[in-house]
């Protein structure tokens, strides 16, 4: 494929950079979360959960691969290069995903908050005017419904178990809850994407839908959604300013690739 791009352009001329920003946000969220959650392989609370968590983490990497693949088609690049060969500061995952996996309660709380926010985001994209984007969104949505049920089952059980489980859940929600809206924070190119129908639903509407879905679940188990951190809703900060947990994760997940970036696998 030459730099001229495919015969049927993925998006009309002039919108490539805007679409790339959206695709990178989607891909990097799934990629970073998938890697962070995969750290439970071998040490999850019991054997079945270990297998399940590892499989769920792999699913996120599959979703990331689909988004990176479309981005590579758009820019004439290579999905692996996009995923692995950037400096950590260029990774555009949200603040929610930037936290380290922490203990099991934090992993499951973050996972559930992410899955609920991502579900709202993906549902909105299913009617995107960018057909290849909509096609991936529809497929991801089918699998995410199941992920969400798994995370919610855990959050409810941790809450209802009381004692140490409940304390850890409370701590987790206090730590990662304020950053949860960062998944849905407006992108810099939101106005252009909305005007073209690529992003059918704006971030304000998505945030309302997400809150309406999450609050009743938390309410039933005696919890509330903490107020959003200002940075989580700021387009300039929601996906930048990564912390030390992420720097360590990124160093590890790119370590093999950096040994020999041109190696054939």
């Amino acid at each position, binding site marked *: 494929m030459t730099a001229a791009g495919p015969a049927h352009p993925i998006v009309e001329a002039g919108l490539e950079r805007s679409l790339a920003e959206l695709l990178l946000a989607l891909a990097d969220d799934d990629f970073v979360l998938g890697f962070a959650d995969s750290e439970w392989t071998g040490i999850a609370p019991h054997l079945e959960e270990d*297998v399940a968590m590892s*499989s769920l983490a792999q699913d996120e990497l599959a979703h990331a691969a689909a988004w990176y693949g479309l981005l590579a088609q758009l820019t004439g690049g290579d999905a692996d290069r996009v995923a692995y060969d950037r400096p950590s500061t260029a990774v555009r995952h949200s603040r929610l995903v930037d936290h380290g996996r922490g203990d099991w309660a934090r992993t499951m709380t973050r996972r559930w908050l992410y899955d609920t926010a991502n579900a709202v985001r993906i549902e909105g994209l299913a009617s995107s005017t960018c057909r290849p984007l909509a096609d991936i969104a529809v497929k991801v949505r089918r699998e995410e419904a*199941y992920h969400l049920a798994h995370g919610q089952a855990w959050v409810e059980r941790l809450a209802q178990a009381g004692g140490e489980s409940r304390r850890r859940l409370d701590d987790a929600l206090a730590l990662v809850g304020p950053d949860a809206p960062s998944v849905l924070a407006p992108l810099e190119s939101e106005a252009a994407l909305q005007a073209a129908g690529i992003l059918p639903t704006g971030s304000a509407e998505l945030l309302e839908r997400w809150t309406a879905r999450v609050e009743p679940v938390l309410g039933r188990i005696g919890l509330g959604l903490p107020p959003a951190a200002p940075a989580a809703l700021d387009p300039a900060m929601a996906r930048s300013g990564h912390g030390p947990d992420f720097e360590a994760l990124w160093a590890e997940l790119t370590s093999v690739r950096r040994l020999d970036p041109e190696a054939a696998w």
Partner: protein
Amino acid sequence: MLPRPPADDPTLGTAPAPSGVRLEPFEVFRQEREGEPMRHGGSVVAPDPTLALHYARELYARRGESLRLWVVRRGDIVEVDDQDLLNPPFDRSYKKPGGYVMRDKLADARARTGASKRAASTGRRRATGAPDAGQPG
């Protein structure tokens, strides 16, 4: 026959987990292709049916190898393993089909219907799983 350890067998995870939650075994049955019978795939331990379903999916279907799963709490299975019921001590050979030769009757039946030996036997096998697959041609 399902292996059926005592309900409190600690090797199967029925002992309290560190948090005090009891895990219990669930048996998983899977169907590989439409029309095939459900076959026992194995078991999972889980604290409740909801998580058992998630674990069954991940252990027995994550590679796309199952069309359908049945997840059954082991304690809900009615088991019969009384040998007085299943293998009573008297001679049972009169209930077995030995000595009853079917070959000639089958050949006559095939001649009447025009079915080949191969088609007839394939149809018989399929008929156990799919009611409408027994009539070749």
